[in-house]
């Protein structure tokens, strides 16, 4: 099986690679369209700022490649946000795979960013097979995707938001599967088994 991690300027991909190593999966880290299109699975990770990341994807033409992929694609954290329509982070037009908006948490009553372990519920994704309701996973983010028909896992911070999204071959998680303990590992394994 060929798994590709998309190479772009939203960093700390090393943790994702080590997480794949731990479950014995091999992978290729690349931004070349041909390699990405021929992969069996595509992982689109992300830590960083939305507008800078989108500008880079546009420059590389990856903003046109990713939405037209037909194999299973998993976006995490900022990767997930870039798969939505628009982000309030520097008013960024994103790839629009999921027709919904990414908004900033209201910081008036809560600390922002949302950092730490929080429980996810209403689990309806094939990626959460084997995970009990209210499993804990690790989040670090200031922006969130609204609840929508694509929401397949929810989390509460300030308000309920989308912890996971799913549409056709596109999967996404707001949290960091790569450092979310056994639960995160299970989600990655489930993704690779799609």
């Amino acid at each position: 099986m060929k798994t590709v991690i998309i190479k772009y300027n939203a960093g700390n991909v090393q943790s994702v690679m080590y997480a794949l190593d731990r479950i014995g999966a091999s992978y290729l880290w690349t931004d070349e369209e041909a390699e990405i299109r021929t992969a069996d699975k595509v992982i689109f990770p992300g830590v960083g700022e939305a507008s800078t990341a989108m500008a880079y994807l546009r420059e590389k033409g990856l903003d046109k490649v990713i939405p037209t992929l037909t194999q299973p694609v998993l976006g995490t954290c900022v990767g997930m946000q870039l798969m939505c329509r628009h982000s309030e982070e520097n008013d960024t037009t994103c790839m629009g795979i999921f027709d919904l908006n990414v908004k900033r948490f209201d910081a008036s009553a809560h600390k922002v960013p949302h950092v730490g372990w929080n429980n996810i519920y209403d689990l309806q994704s094939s990626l959460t097979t084997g995970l009990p309701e209210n499993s804990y996973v690790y989040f670090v983010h200031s922006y969130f995707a609204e609840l929508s028909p694509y929401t397949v896992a929810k989390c509460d911070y300030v308000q309920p938001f989308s912890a996971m999204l799913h549409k056709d071959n596109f999967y996404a998680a707001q949290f960091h599967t790569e450092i979310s303990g056994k639960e995160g590992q299970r989600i990655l394994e489930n993704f690779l088994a799609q």
Partner: protein
Amino acid sequence: MLTKRIIPCLDIKDGRTVKGTNFVNLRDAGDPVELGAIYAEQGADELVFLDITATVDNRKTLIDLVRNVAKHVNIPFTVGGGISSIADVSALLNAGADKVSINSSAVRRPELINELALQFGSQCIVVAIDTRFVENEHIVHTHGGRKPTEIRTIAWAKEVEERGAGEILLTSMDTDGTKAGFANQLTATISTNASIPIIASGGAGSMEHFYEVFTEGKADAGLAASIFHFKEIDIIELKTYLQQKGISIRL
């Protein structure tokens, strides 16, 4: 619900854990990777590795260690000690660290916080503040808490947040090592004024102390070293206790 975090801290010298431990099941008590993995298994929410040698010679050893930890540990971890440049941070993050912690270098040149936050994002920049109560004022100290500065702790905490710190690791040198409890009042003052998480450190001696730092101290996370290493407090027991007391905890 977002949970309060329990964070064991491992002091590292020449790639080895410094303070002794009495984990009888450890093959090698000085191996930070094995110890870190055990803590992760026991339910630690994050780990902090503090390089107390932090000389240029030891940098490569530390990077190797970070790479090994990242390979074996599936929870977030922070690395601190002697970090003073973008290049230092880049090397640690590329080796697999999730966050870095800076202390004296931020006091020396506060712009470093802005530069690191811009380059790597606030989420991975922890600013450690060592504080001591001197002549009626909480004063920032550097060099492992030995050297006083002229900076007031509460103002400094606000400044590091404004400059882009993602979290604050607040260590009270007044309570550190006493096992008499965290500096709850100061922690609460800083936490209430901050919109970023506060990790409280220094003084943990009992499970009640963690309860107090999360309630009275309003901390987002509690960090301790020796009480975990010497198994005076078991992480699972601690987390069960806190949950029974109504604290939101990951179990």
